[in-house]
């Protein structure tokens, strides 16, 4: 994994980290079938911070779950690097998540009985993997948790809890970090902190981040926004602003 300090040349596209092809997901609800994903083709590049947006029920969470190997797609393929993760068995998926993917959820991100530091180190411990002390210190300082490392989650504010989750996701420099509404439960100031931190990580650490959100402001921190509706990719915006995203979203809802 080479870290590039210069911004990648826009003309030379780096190889995609995550590639999904013809992804569908169908739920049987007894009488009829619900198509949560109806054929999605999408790819995410190294160091890119991508937001997935869409109205409620558009399938954005399902897409993320399938990309991350948390859920099994009905058809289609997902590649992480050279690994095709669709078709992997549960045990292999578990190892894949453990070693190559980071997660940030909206809530219930932290185990209540572990301190902030223990929460951050948990994936490494599960994997029995050594921790890069320098990287740990660097991340802790960046997210500003140095003083709070030995606190239980109950003693942390919502923003601090989310920052712990971010630090945990980034610590092992996974190939991709999936964030599911990471600011959904935060006030706007804390949300802005977390988002800025995610954006900086993508730029400075060349970290690939995929974020699901329904908040145009949150989406505006991303490099690229893809729009989902009824299980299909319908639009895409690069270098988004909140206004632009809102307008597109509004248009989607109306259509």
């Amino acid at each position, binding site marked *: 994994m080479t870290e590039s300090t210069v911004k990648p040349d826009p003309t030379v596209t780096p190889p995609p980290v995550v590639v999904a092809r013809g992804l569908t997901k169908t739920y049987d609800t007894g009488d009829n079938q619900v198509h949560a994903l109806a054929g999605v083709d999408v790819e995410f590049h190294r160091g890119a911070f991508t937001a997935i947006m869409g109205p409620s029920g558009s399938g954005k969470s399902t897409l993320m779950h399938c990309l991350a190997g948390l859920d099994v797609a009905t058809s289609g393929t997902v590649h992480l690097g050279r690994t095709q993760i669709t078709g992997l068995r549960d045990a292999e998926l578990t190892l894949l998540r*453990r070693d190559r993917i980071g997660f940030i959820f909206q809530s219930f991100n932290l*185990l209540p*009985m572990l301190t902030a530091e223990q929460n951050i180190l948990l994936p490494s411990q599960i994997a029995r993997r050594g921790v890069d002390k320098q990287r740990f210190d660097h991340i802790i300082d960046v997210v500003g948790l140095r003083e709070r490392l030995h606190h239980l989650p109950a003693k942390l504010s919502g923003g601090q809890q989310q920052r712990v989750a971010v630090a945990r996701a980034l610590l092992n420099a996974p190939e991709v970090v999936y964030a599911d509404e990471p600011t959904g439960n935060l006030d706007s100031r804390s949300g802005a902190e977390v988002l800025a931190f995610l954006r900086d990580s993508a730029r400075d650490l060349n970290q690939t981040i995929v974020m699901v959100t329904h908040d145009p402001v949150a989406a505006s921190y991303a490099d690229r926004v893809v729009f989902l509706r009824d299980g299909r990719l319908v639009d895409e915006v690069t270098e988004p602003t909140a206004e632009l995203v809102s307008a597109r979203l509004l248009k989607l809802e109306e259509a």
Partner: protein
Amino acid sequence: MLRTTLAGLRLHKSRYVTTVLAILLGVMFVSGTMVFADTLNANYEESVMGSATSVDAIAEPTMEEPEGPEPPEEPVPFTGEQLDEVRALPEVAEAGGILEDQTVLLDADGRAVGFVPPAAVALDGTSRLSADEGELPSNGDEIALATSTAEQTGFAVGDTVTVLDSEQDKREFTLTGLVEFGVDPTYSSRGAVIFDPATIREMTGAEGYGEIDVLAAEGHTPEEVADAVAAALGSGAEVQTGEEYGLELAENVGGQTEMLRVALLLFALIAMFVAGIVIYNTFAILIAQRQREMALLRCVGAKRGQVFRSVLAESMVVGLVASALGVLAGVGVGMAGARFGGPMMGVETSVSVVITPTAVLVGMAIGTVVTVFSALVPATRATRVAPLAALRTSATAAGLEKGTGWIRVVFGLLAFAVSAGLVALSRTMEMSPYLLFIVTGAALIAFVGVVVLGPLLVRGIVRLVGVPLRKVGVPSMLAVDNSTRSPRRAATAMIALTVGATLITGYSVISSSTEATMTRMLEEQFPVDYQITPQFSMEEPEESGSEGAEEAPAEGTEGTEAAAGQHEGAAASGENTEGEPAEGDAAGETGAGSAEQGGGAEEVSDAPEFPTVPDEVRVALESQPDLGQVFGQSSAFVGQDDGGGLPVYTYPGAEVGVDVTSDVVEGELTGFDPGEVVLAQSYADDAGVGIGDTFTISSENGEDLSLEVVAVVEDMQMLSGVTVTEEDFTRAFPGVDEAEMLFVRAAEGADPAEVRDAVYTAVEDHPTMQVGSAAEMKNQFTQMLDIAFYTIAAMLGLAIIIAVFGISNTMALSVLERTRESALLRALGLARGQLRRMLSVEAVLLCLIGAGIGIALGVLFGWAAGAAVLPNMIFAIPSVQIAVFIVIAVLAGLLASVLPARRAASTSITGALASE
């Protein structure tokens, strides 16, 4: 409101499965016990009544009620003339008598059966007794046995049976039938041999009738017949109608069944208590989890009382359903118990199962009341939920409890201190049965302490054992953290297990300490390999010793029971004030009995009072090369002024202080010479003498024997009463020339099997000599203790199973609560196996803490209770059993976590993450 409750129950019924099982098991135990005992009772009654009501009147000889300290006289049996008189009465159609005596029955090895010879019985004419199998003997070659005697000896109908006649000559009979005497106390312990009337007179010279059974003549009621017979027999007879007699017998028997019922119910209540703890925990957890539901109810207008009632109604429904199922299961268990357990207890179950309304109602009531009662506290807690809680989203911190309050800590420590104080107090006090109450009280207080400090204990112990566990891996690290996040919940679940573990460990400590103490007593104070005693006779030797004779069968007919009697005697008498050490061997008992009879008069009893071991036996034993040393014990009893007796012993052929010894209180045992005497402490105290003082024994020829006290020894050991040298003994009691007991020690290096052969060869010509072996006695005693232990462990096993259900339920509810957490862990890369392992470790940890605390309490209070009743107890920790408990605790934990872990591992990650 009720509709909401029921709807809620239907929705959450899976959460109640284990709770229902816990209640069900407890109720099953209660109802099963009732059905079992009722059925057993009905069977007893039927068998007893059946035999008694087959005749119209039954006459038994009676004795005058004794006045003062005089022991009751033996009743005088009816004579043949009396029987003829009864037969001649116009009200009587037929009458028959039961001729009674005793006889020596030989087993297949040619040794006399029983410590006491069985009763010899003949049915002369009509009788309430009949053969249950085969035929009654009809001639001089036939014989019948009591069913119990046949079981004991292994004889079956058709076998050849040898009996000794009054001249001690062998005579062979063919066994033609078995008679079930049932629980008739006259025959149940000694057993009985049935001859035909002519043969019993020939064999034993029996003349007296122990009972006369009468059939009424046409037109006379049983009452009229009974009155007529009573008038004819006079004051020496008690006459009852068959029905009255049966009722009386049945009542006696009923007492035994009631004891069994009470004992079983005690265990059933322990099980219900544990079930109560489990129910409490389940409701407490459910209420905590349904806070928002309760709050919503309050939001839409439910009053506090309504919420309270709704929770109680819920518990009521659960309790009723579970109790109903429990009663059904109990009836089944009771049936199975009566079917398979009855025959083991010597009752043929002919009557169909008795299901009384009481059995059903008690089961239903106990189950429901315990359930509702256990739900009271959680229900109260439910009313405290603020309506606003409905709007609050559950935070990540949910489930983390506050720390333990200092009041709790103080109260808990106080309980421990009081308990420790009581135990210490019990150790300093003189031994008495009340000590057991103090120790029990201390145990209960300590248990309260454990309950109060439970959360703290769980946290502390987990922190301690967590140190190495954390290093094992992430699953165990997480398990350690998980187990302390709701310490109160964990503590309650664990305490349910502690109850059973404490009781089982406590009992096993007492059991193993008793065994160790017995073994030491046998080894130190019975330092011989074999003991030869004459068979105890039920005949009255010189009109004395009758009380002793009656005591003997009650105390035990076998060496084992004699040993048990010794232990119980030792346990019960404690500080001996009366001056009668509780000797275990029958000879000692007899001595005590007759010594009392000597009453008042300063006289020496005629000798020999009791059967002694013939000198030929001693000679035969001494001639065996495999036997090293043979020595005897002879005794005489001197009546005392105060009505007590003075047992004087000597041990010909033994060196006092070496071969026969006791723990010395003061003085020296070695170098014991003529003119000297050794006293057991209570006798020395009674006489007010010490070392160097003169102790006087009245001798046979009227001369007093003045001896110098050289040693005072502990009571209730080998040297009991007064011990003198052989020379002094012979001088004082020249009439006592044979030993009442012989002790045999094997030659150095002799093969045990050959020693055994040698002993039996020596007594071959004396079949009535009872051969006791220290090793066999110990084996039998150990076996008895083991049986008792396994029985009690099995009874407590149910309480433990219920506790495991409780732990499983707690785990399952916690897993439910932590669904999102589990999903998060899985998302972060925790494998399914690791998740399962995490829950297993948590459950095992809980079980181990519960069992550990129980074992600690059990060892402590088992020791205290044992020391309170066993003098000079040797404290023995049953390490093997404790190791087994620990293994069981681990297995129980694994078992308890199976279902919750499977459920946690199989939940879909995305589904769990999405659900809020």
